[in-house]
């Protein structure tokens, strides 16, 4: 049996979590109470956020769409476990990142990991601002990092978060996040 609650680590850092938007909170409360419309509104409002996040992590639009749909479906069941202590978006990050990871794991299990990198369907890649080869190379390298290093780099550089904020989402301490970033840089130095 799993450990008791008392053993669960608690890393809630109230100082870094912005106060949650009232409207979201209300919608969540109603949705948990069984209000279908409130749930619909909530998902609609956050779909873009979920999709964008998934895009950055997956690098493929079609994958991101799959992940986003998964997350929306999951929300129906897991929303009630959101307690409002952290911002809804932070929580949503977490859910989305996990969905990305689940998808990638499932893909690895099916042994398709290799062609994920080998087979290039150009239209599927994110259109980069300058569409430069360098930018594409950068994204590829980052996405190939180990899960936690990748998460840390993307949250900090692509999302512009502080180490502490990223820590909240990753469920790690700030120092741990910094360490992941440091490691990621070491890895990337050889690649870029």
């Amino acid at each position, binding site marked *: *049996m*799993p*450990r008791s*609650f008392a053993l*669960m*680590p608690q*890393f*809630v850092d109230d100082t870094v979590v912005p106060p949650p938007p009232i409207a979201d909170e209300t919608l969540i409360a109603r*949705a948990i109470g*069984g209000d*279908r419309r409130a749930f*619909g509104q909530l*998902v*609609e409002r956050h*779909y*873009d956020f979920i*999709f*964008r996040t998934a895009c*950055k992590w997956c690098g493929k*639009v079609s994958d991101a*769409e799959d992940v*986003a749909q998964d997350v*929306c*479906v*999951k*929300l*129906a*069941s*897991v929303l*009630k*476990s*959101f*307690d409002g202590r952290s911002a809804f978006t932070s*929580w949503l990050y977490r*859910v989305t990142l*996990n*969905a990305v990871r689940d998808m990638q794991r499932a893909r690895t299990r099916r042994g398709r990991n290799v062609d994920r990198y080998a087979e290039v369907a150009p239209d599927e890649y*994110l*259109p*980069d*601002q300058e569409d430069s080869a360098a*930018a594409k190379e*950068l*994204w590829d390298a*980052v996405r190939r990092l180990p*899960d*936690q290093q990748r998460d840390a*780099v*993307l949250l900090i*550089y*692509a*999302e*512009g978060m502080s180490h502490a904020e990223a820590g*909240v989402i*990753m*469920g*790690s301490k700030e*120092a741990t996040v910094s360490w992941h970033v440091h490691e990621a*840089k070491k890895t990337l*130095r050889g690649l870029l």
Partner: protein
Amino acid sequence: MSNHDEIDSKLSALRATRTPAANEARRNQALDAALRAFDAEQQRATQGNPIINRLRSVFANAKGTFAMDNRLTYGLGTAAIALLLLPLGYQLYTSTAITPVGVPPVTVEHTAEPDTLGGEASKVTTEEKNVEVNGAAAATAPMVEAEIAADEAVVLAPAPVPADASAAKPLSRTLVSPGGAAPQMSAGVQPKMAMESFSAPMTAEPMMALPADPSGNMFSKFTESPVKIVRDEPVSTFSIDVDTAAYSYVRRALTEGWVPEPDAVRIEELINYFSYDYPEAPDAATPFQPTVSVYPTPWNDKTQIVQIGIKGYVPPVSEDKPSNLVFLLDTSGSMDAPDKLSLLKRAFGLLVDQMGENDTVSIVAYAGSAGVVLEPTKGTEKTKILAALDTLAAGGSTAGAAGIELAYQLAEQHKVTGGVNRVILATDGDFNVGIDDPEDLKAYIRQKRDSGVFLSVLGFGSGNLGDDTMQALAQNGNGNASYIDSFKEAQKVLVRDAGGTLETIAKDVKIQVEFNPAVVSEYRLIGYETRALNREDFNNDKVDAGDVGAGTTVTALYEITPVGSGAELNDPLRYGTDAAEPAVEAGSATEFGYLKLRYKAPDSDTSKLIEMPIGKDLAVASLDAAGADQRWAAAVAAFGQKLKGSHYGDMSWADIRKLAQGARGEDEAGYRAEFMGLIDMAAVLRPNVVAASPAEQVEVAPAPVPEVAPSN
């Protein structure tokens, strides 16, 4: 440093990336899917158990960021797992043979839910929690995540709905049996209570096992032999078992203060640990003669025990048979403990002391790579052998298979005819490298056995003892498995019982008993679950069975219910008669049954048969009139049954102790005295359960209407 900054600025470019706008169609699709899921969720919430509606953790890597989230997930997860496993274990319990007769069959008639849930429970996965790297919180703990898929979560506790009314008739008239509590479980008895009452059959679920075994050792699972109806199944067949490993293991467990896993308690091995004073066979031509006695059962005054004992022929000392022994010693890193390698060295030193001129000893070590430590050496060169033993040190991982091949190769090169050719494997049990398929290894050992080289396995230490592997190997290699937990035990196995351990006088010994339905209505074989054979295997010489060493005693006990004693656990059938009427022969009412015993000479492939009737005249009227050996065996059986939480034989520890105390006999080596100590320890660790008054025999015609209707 500049390098770092360069990376930094490059990474900043990530920020500038724009993501494409979401596709409208996909977006609407996702919203629709979400709403459908929401609807399904709501429906479930109103129908299902509100406590554990839908529990689908997405926190594959959650580390407590959202403290509340996790608590919810974990709390519900724990509850869900408990609720999932209870019906699952219950299903296991009811669908396997261990169901004692007399348990209300009502509960067996569940609808299919447990199956569904069983399938779901297998989805419970453990995932490694990611490591917090900053040192402060470096905790890796497996996290259990329960996933309940959409449609299965609806019914969590199977309601006791009998399929038809006739099945609802409770038949219990036995002691309070675990099944008795079953129907209430689903009606809302606290999970803990339910769990306790299920502890015995639940052993298939490691999570549910009551006595926490701190060891991590592996045991073959088995279910206790059930009571058989003589008219349905008059013939009982099994292979003898000369292993004693279970006893040493149980002793170690109790001495260290924990209750061994039920699967580790093989009652026949407990009984056979002790030697009994059966009459010896007169000559080598007939290596043993069976001794049968019948006496009242100490735990049930209406039934009787049939004890079958054999003692192997002991060749006279003048016959110094040459022996060719290959020690195959595990020197992997895990053996580096005082109770493993160093005990092993001292134990083998004992064996070397007995070696003579005719004997050769070789030593093969196996760890990362197998190697010959000592080329075959005459038994008289003791210093050389002991020096080789001394050089052994632990290190590397275990590659059992490669070592075994090397050992057999040596044994075959120096094979002695008419003597003992044996590989003695000493290990803590884990063959974890170099063997792809355990079946292949077993086949290899079988093949070598046929060529005349036998295998004995000595188990050492605790922690990753692969008891099941050891047993399997020894059984396939015409050998025996012993567990060495102390120097004293080493002395027993390698010196006192060395003859039995090393010199086989009969192989493939099988016992078959046919009970007489005119006299015996029910019978139950005590122990030997892992040795059961098919009826037809008895006459098939190709079927392997246990071997008897020189001077070894083997004992088997049956608990029989005489016809008309009123102690039958099975009710007579309501419709039709029981099986066919037996062909009653004249005088057959004077026999309980007929004993047949087959064995092969060590170098023969054809079996010989020994047979004798079990006459009523063998029975004694009271337990006191039975011999000390008989009472001792019964006491050990009662001890084993109680220790493993058997459904049979409910005696208090004090009564077991009293019975054993009066049957200690001479006990020169003090083994029986030691057993007395084990009874006391077991009594402390597993106190008597105060039995509630036996369930009344109630006739309930209509099925009880369950309070919670099953929802589908």
